[in-house]
């Protein structure tokens, strides 16, 4: 991917410009992580002083909003585990839905083409507009597509529920840990 390298260098410089001080972006790791996602690489870097996650616009293919996770300086092992789980789930979700939506579009096109050919119609009308089928004709395709992907959805659903529960559970644990730490620090201060 020679074409990407100069962009990546620019990106890293951009990130470093922002990431001195508060925002620990870990650009190399971020770069790797971003390359792992199948769709477009997001070039977003949050402002330096931000201590929160940032959420982006819906992805073009998966319609899911990517989250840029904030890595605090004193990240505990539990917090790191949560963040990694969330990142991994995000990538997994992104992959599934991007693939799903692209497959849907491709198969829809194929279906429309085959139906139009069967009807003996051209793919484009004389005016140059793309010929389409009406909703009732498309209904066969929707039914077909749904039943074809049923098993895939079953596996996805099961995994999604598991991950969702795990993430929420860990979020709860992290929240409790933070409260506990705050209480612990307060007690130390009052003793001192």
């Amino acid at each position, binding site marked *: 991917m020679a074409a990407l390298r100069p962009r990546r260098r620019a990106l890293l410089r951009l990130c470093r*410009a922002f990431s001195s001080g508060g925002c620990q972006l870990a650009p190399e790791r971020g770069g790797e992580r971003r390359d792992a996602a199948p769709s477009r690489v997001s070039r977003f870097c949050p402002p330096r002083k931000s201590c929160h996650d940032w959420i*982006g616009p819906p992805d073009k293919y998966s319609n899911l909003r990517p989250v840029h996770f904030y890595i605090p300086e004193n990240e505990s092992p539990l917090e790191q585990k949560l963040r990694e789980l969330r990142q991994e789930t995000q990538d997994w979700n992104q992959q599934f839905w991007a693939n*799903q939506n692209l497959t849907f579009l491709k198969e829809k096109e194929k279906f429309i083409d085959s139906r139009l050919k069967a009807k003996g119609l051209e793919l484009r009308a004389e005016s140059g507009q793309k010929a389409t089928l009406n909703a*009732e004709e498309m209904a066969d395709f929707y039914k077909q597509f749904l039943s074809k992907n049923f098993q895939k959805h079953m596996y996805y659903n099961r995994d999604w529920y598991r991950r969702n529960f795990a993430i929420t559970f860990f979020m709860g644990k992290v929240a409790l840990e933070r409260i506990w730490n705050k209480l612990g620090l307060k007690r130390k201060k009052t003793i001192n």
Partner: protein
Amino acid sequence: MNIIAKRSASWVGGCVWYLERRALQESPRRFLHLLRNVNQQWVTFQHFNFLRHMYVTQLNRSFNQQIKPKPEPVPSPFLEKASLDEAKTEIYKMRPLSPASLSLSRKPNEKESIELEPTPVIEGSIAVGTETKEEKQWKEMKLRVDDLPGILARLSKIKLTALVVSTTSAGFALAPAPFDWPCFLLTFVGTGLASCAANSINQFFEVPFDSNMNRTKNRPLVRGQISPLLAVSFAACCAVPGVALLTWGVNPLTGALGLFNIFLYTCCYTPLKRISIANTWVGAVVGAIPPLMGWTAATGSLDAGAFLLGGILYSWQFPHFNALSWGLREDYSRGGYCMMSVTHPDLCRRVALRHCLALVAMSAAAPALDVTTWTFPVIALPINLYISYLGFRFYRDADRKSSRKLFFCSLWHLPLFLLLMLTCKRPAAQGDAGGPQS
């Protein structure tokens, strides 16, 4: 009695209206709140005007580079965004710009030209021009307290909750018992809380699916306005007091029904949507339980009248939902939802028509079960015939137009139907004239 029923119906309507007005009024208030934040270091008035006219990306510390602005046609800052509630978070926490950078000249006629100092960053800079628009759409996931009521209202599907609570109120009002205001209020609040909890859990489960459907892509969890943990905590904070209020404030039967309904909606209906078309029937039961709860709250028992009311709500769900789902077939297919409209379209329309006719039959059964007088089926006949006619058109034509007509009819048919039932409520057996009861 009639006056009380009308008052409660109008009060519920008023609440919904108030909530909608607040949502509209809040937007300019947030804008003013933004202006009030001038004290904070990272937002200055210079930023305000500056960002209004251009996007700036600092490519290095020397402030020498600048991205060509795209002229904004909208006069007010940040109103180019679709919703004003995003406007506040648009301002990034940028380092304060020195006056030198502000006075750098722009070339207004060039599109996306970049003034650069000769640095090795040139090759990446062109890509940055197109990125800044995307970057602008990134939002900080920081929960603001003033946004919280709006977010929670959307999380709990407040309009649907209002509808659920009004069907419960109708059940309460139609029950053959003296209207008890404290009991009514407890039922009202308890059912509302239970509904909020159920809706929040539903949204918690469905984040990636909601993201992929146009109808649901602006929900709070999808947009990251609230964390899943907070959503679940909110649901728990609604469910526990709600069910407790119903169980101990009203009666255990109502509490049990409330708890069962939450379970049915979150643990049966929601997962079943992706497994089998049976979800529609389960969902219809979910819709039928609130009037049952209203009835049991008033009388303490489930009798024939309660089941009739439940049956009416159950039957109503089919024309309502089947017609709605007709226009969403593409989204359902892509998202993996098992709905009759996709898998069994004939069944979908047949069931909708069948249940329109069932509504006619049940309005005739109402006086037979001593819920209403015999006037009721007569005066309800026009609207029942109309919805049956639309159901028949939907069955025959099977197109988007007829499905939309049926759906919109169902929206006004139900409140009107219940109101007519209330006005024709069977008076109490001791020879009262059927006037308003205290």
